[in-house]
């Protein structure tokens, strides 16, 4: 954490705990994400990675601790407000609107950009509002081209392949110009070709002033992508550092392979 002092952190998680009854899903987690970096969140199953995403995005409220995004306290903020402030996310088990088209799904993410429209604009479809909508449509189509989904824009999501759905979800997360993107296993279950394609896109995105935090299982895969790694185990942060350091960290190896694995 100390070496990142030069850049200002976009996200600051401080002593966050989340208890479900007696279960400590997250236990006193602290870390900072520095702007425009890719950070990976790894850990065995049930270590609290997705819970952490849910706490950051407001779906769960932290039992203890605080979360600051762009220097604003978002610990108790409403879910939709947090999204509008610029945190986008995807889900481990894809959550798309299956009965809507690809275009509509992605546009949902883009509508965050429209914030100053009035009720009258929306209901009466004023010229000004139509202009805004046109811009959104344009932006959405641009993202769809970026992710090679343009040809499928009128397809219903429920008839897409798994890899396509993953990309649609990714598109929805990034279309709203979010400054922080949380990706929950973005390439899990994809075929090799699709994986490489998406990896490229993630790298490209991080060059465009976007901070990325992603959950992934395989350390090897994460190492080439992320500039730093945070490791969770049983709700606790057990390590944080550069990929090389993490790969050699005895605590991490133990968490993954069990005691005495070395």
């Amino acid at each position, binding site marked *: 954490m100390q070496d990142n002092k030069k850049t200002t952190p976009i996200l600051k998680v401080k002593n966050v705990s989340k208890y479900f009854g007696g279960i400590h899903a997250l236990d006193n987690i602290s870390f900072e994400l520095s702007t425009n970096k890719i950070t990976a969140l790894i850990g065995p199953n049930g270590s609290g990675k997705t819970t952490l995403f849910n706490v950051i995005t407001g779906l769960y409220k932290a039992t203890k601790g605080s979360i600051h995004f762009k220097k604003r306290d978002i610990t108790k903020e409403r879910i939709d407000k947090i999204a509008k402030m610029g945190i986008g996310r995807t889900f481990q088990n894809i959550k798309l609107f299956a009965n809507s088209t690809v275009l509509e799904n992605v546009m949902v993410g883009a509508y965050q950009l*429209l914030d100053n429209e009035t009720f009258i604009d929306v209901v009466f479809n004023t010229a000004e509002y139509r202009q805004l909508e046109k811009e959104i449509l344009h932006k959405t189509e641009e993202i769809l081209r970026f992710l090679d989904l343009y040809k499928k824009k009128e397809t219903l999501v429920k008839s897409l392949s798994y890899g396509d759905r993953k990309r649609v979800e990714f598109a929805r997360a990034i279309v709203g110009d979010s400054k922080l993107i949380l990706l929950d296993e973005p390439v899990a279950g994809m075929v090799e070709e699709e994986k490489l394609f998406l990896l490229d896109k993630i790298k490209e995105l991080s060059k465009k002033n976007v901070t990325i935090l992603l959950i992934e299982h395989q350390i090897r895969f994460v190492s080439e992508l992320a500039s730093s790694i945070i490791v969770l185990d049983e709700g606790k942060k057990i390590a944080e550092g550069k990929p090389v350091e993490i790969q050699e960290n005895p605590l991490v190896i133990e968490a993954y392979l069990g005691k005495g694995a070395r």
Partner: protein
Amino acid sequence: MDNTSLSHFVQVTINGLSMGCVYALVAVGYGMVYGILNMINFAHGEIYMFGAYIAYSALVCKMGLFSSILLSLFFCGVLGVTVERLAYKPLREASRIAPALTAMAVALLIRSAVMIIWGSSPIMFPQVINNKPIILNNNIRFYPLQFSIIFVTIVIWVFSLWLFKYTKIGKAIRAVSQDRNTAWLMGIDADKIVSIVYLYGSILAAIAGFLIANYYILLFPLMGFLGTIRAWTAAVLGGIGKLSGAVIGGLLIGLVESFAMTYISTAYKDVIIFIVLIIILLVMPRGLLKGRGQKV
């Protein structure tokens, strides 16, 4: 078919269609609420009844036709949103049965309140709309009110379709009804959208209440319950969660009711409606327009 029985047939169809339109209006709101929260809103018909009573009082107090309608829409909208915020919202995460039971309680509450304010015996609705029938050849009577009912329903149907398909609110409603939490995480204020749906549903119910009160010229507290049953049947028949399904279901029920009353028996009309419902659900378990793949 000879000439008199043909004109009789046309007459029954017109009557059925106009009744069906009222049911469709109630069913659309009911179906929207079901679609967005998966909740069986037993209080929906009560709002329709309440709207009719408010319009009655406004008209009795010599308010104009237009302002009475507006007043009734306003009160029903406020009632719908208040009920949602106070009674249903705290139960969002509860099992499906809890809000349904709460809705029953709300229905009883509204019905009792209406009985306290207006009394439990039926009252006559003041006849304000000129409803002199236009007699076509073949002795078919076409009431201007029936024409207004059908016209209003078509306008609302088209408007709702447009609203759902092309506006931001419509897209947000569709997103929230497919997955509330995800929509929320994408920056849609899900609570606000749910309230808007209740508001819209309540306003449609109020319009339907006003039309039915003018049509039957009679108000009674139990009409709300009957409205709920009709709306439920129509929405399920058409395919629950589908806008056009609710409209088609409503029209079908209106027609079946009208024909059953004329050609079979007035006493058995409800039985016949439910027999039709059972047969259709046996053949098409998700309703005519294939609504959600869920149990109803």
